[in-house]
């Protein structure tokens, strides 16, 4: 496919990247390209400038702090997360990344791109909310942090606005996590997915694929009935499409929430 004419820049630092993104209205960051390149082919968006983040070592890699906190650079690929010894500090991260798409997409797609594209069917938005992640965003004015549950604003819209970059995803220590999904194939895009974590008090259950943003539900306990009831009370209005009617998605949300919490409980003990 021939893309619309576009300018390409490969900045040498995060500072340069942010400056370029701020200077030009039609500039877009290019991470793994596994969403953006398709969007450009379909001309759903035609940026004037793509600012290639590949090559910015500052945005790559995973650091494990002494307290078990993980600092994951936005440009870290799914494959790097799956293979990282550090990321095993919170095993669910690698387990979920291994379920995304296929080898080729996992080799290119990045944690930053996954959350910044905020496609409602993506795997990582519900996960980072369940794990209580924190997003570090850099703009020309400096750096700020946003809790994951406030990061997702709408379909393809996040707190990292025009002219800004997500630089780091911070995941606190923990292990009592679970993920359950009904993918369309063996791995890959889900009809509904649910991430759950029991670390840090009341369960955090986050349902994906049912709304423009991941839906955080806080059941009173991790008992099956409490989880099911809390998801029902959330009054989800999922989409109807070729893969499933809304009613079935509502049903799946409850079933998968129970499964995700059960998996988290097993990890807790």
């Amino acid at each position: 496919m021939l893309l619309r004419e576009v300018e390409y820049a490969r900045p040498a630092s995060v500072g340069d990247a942010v400056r370029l993104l701020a200077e030009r209205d039609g500039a877009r960051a290019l991470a793994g390209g596994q969403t953006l390149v398709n969007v450009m082919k379909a001309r759903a968006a035609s940026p004037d400038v793509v600012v290639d983040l590949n090559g910015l070592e500052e945005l790559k890699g995973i650091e494990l702090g002494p307290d078990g906190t993980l600092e994951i650079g936005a440009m870290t690929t799914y494959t790097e997360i799956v293979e990282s010894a550090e990321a095993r500090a919170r095993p669910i991260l690698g387990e979920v990344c291994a379920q995304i798409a296929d080898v080729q997409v996992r080799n290119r797609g990045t944690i930053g791109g996954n959350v910044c594209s905020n496609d409602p069917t993506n795997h990582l938005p519900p996960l980072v909310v369940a794990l209580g992640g924190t997003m570090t965003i850099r703009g020309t004015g400096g750096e700020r942090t946003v809790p994951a549950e406030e990061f997702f604003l709408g379909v393809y819209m996040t707190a990292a606005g025009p002219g800004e970059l997500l630089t780091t995803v911070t995941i606190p220590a923990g292990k009592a996590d679970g993920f359950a999904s009904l993918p369309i194939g063996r791995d890959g895009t889900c009809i509904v997915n649910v991430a759950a974590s029991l670390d840090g008090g009341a369960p955090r259950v986050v349902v994906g694929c049912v709304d423009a943003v991941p839906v955080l539900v806080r059941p009173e306990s991790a008992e099956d009935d409490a989880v099911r009831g809390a998801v029902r009370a959330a009054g989800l209005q999922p989409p109807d499409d070729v893969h499933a009617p809304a009613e079935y998605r509502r049903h799946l949300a409850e079933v998968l929430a129970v499964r995700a919490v059960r998996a988290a409980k097993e990890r807790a003990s």
Partner: protein
Amino acid sequence: MTPETARTIAVDVNGVSYEREVEARKLLIHFLRDDLDLTGSHVGCDTGNCGACSVLLDGVLLKSCMLLAVQADGTSIRTVEGLGSDGELDALQQAFADHHALQCGYCTPGMLMSASWLLERNPRPSEEEIRRAIQGNICRCTGYVNIVRAVQAASGQEVSE
């Protein structure tokens, strides 16, 4: 660096160095096929779903319809033309032929690259590992069974019935 609509890039493809000016909007698959005349890699879907365009870039398996050619500047690329040598098939290609792992052959170049990437990292993969490794490659002819058998055979394993 200032944004540009075209750049001169230097790449090594299957051991041959090339320097070419490319437009920023050109996808790597079209650079390989149209500019370098390496038409082994195919365009099946152009949406990142079928894997027919799979190549190794600095040793990493990816779909070349999902990357701009300018992004490949300074890299070393391996395409299906880089398998085998002197007109001889390599063990994997021979196993594909022996086990009827292709019919129309459209998916084969990508399938071979995915299977090569697997065997480099995992010389004796299980059937499940083989199936997961080729998940990003769609074949509309074979039903995959013979492809799995070919990869088993190429890795010196007993071929499942």
